[in-house]
């Protein structure tokens, strides 16, 4: 493999890992919002109640 090809492979791997990191961030974001804003478990609902209303999540 010549140097140019090596660089290309390396930069492709970097792009791949960046996309993974971005997907991971989006997944964490949706997860946090779902837990704090949407899961209907009673304890969670009661604790997050005021914030759910104040941020306009569908509550109750």
């Amino acid at each position, binding site marked *: 493999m010549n140097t140019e090809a090596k660089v290309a492979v390396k930069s492709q791997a970097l792009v791949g890992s960046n996309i993974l990191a971005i997907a991971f961030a989006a997944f*964490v974001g949706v997860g946090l919002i779902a837990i704090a804003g949407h899961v209907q478990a009673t304890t969670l609902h009661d604790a997050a109640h005021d914030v759910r209303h*104040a941020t306009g999540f569908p509550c109750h």
Partner: protein
Amino acid sequence: MLTRILTTAIFAGFITAFLAALLQFLLVQPLLLHSELFESGVMQHFGTSGAGTPAHAELPGFDPLRDGMSVLFTAVIYTGYAFLLVAGIALASEQGHEITPRTGILWGIAGFVAVQLAPAMGLPPELPGAAAADVAARQVWWFGTVAATALGLWLVAFGRSPVIWAVALLCLAVPHIIGAPEPDVFTGPVPPEIAAHFAARALGVGLASWSILGMLAGYFWNKEA
């Protein structure tokens, strides 16, 4: 990249959450507490006297557990918002777009439109006791609207052809053409004056908080570069 995303999202999310919680306690919480007096029956609207309902009431004060939970969950929610926003910023940055605190404010406003304003057009921020359709159906519409609006705004911002912009418009419009699930009957015991004030303030606080979130995300994104 991952470190940069994590640092940006956590710092921007936590700082914004503190400010958002402060705004909530000052502007939104009093209306929420007021409405609970009607929900619990301590106060009643449309009394028989015809004299109207007194507009002022004595509200319960600071409640360490309840308000502490609110701060905690504001932090969780705004950190969640921050992760989504920074994911978008990272993707745009990958494609060569420059992110600064100034453009960050635009990102924040777009986030507000996708996550709060667009869903609020079908499901306005509601007070406790307001009538509403089945919660699962509303959540499906909520998530669908957020996703479609976010995609639509992305295509408006980064699309380069009329066809893409037409698709963007469709993404923005479809949730509202479908329409949010609505209740069969209205049962809200709270005066509409309080409900309207609450919805407007919830959105105003949301806009302020998201603008700050976007600006801070732009700032920390560059600081971590």
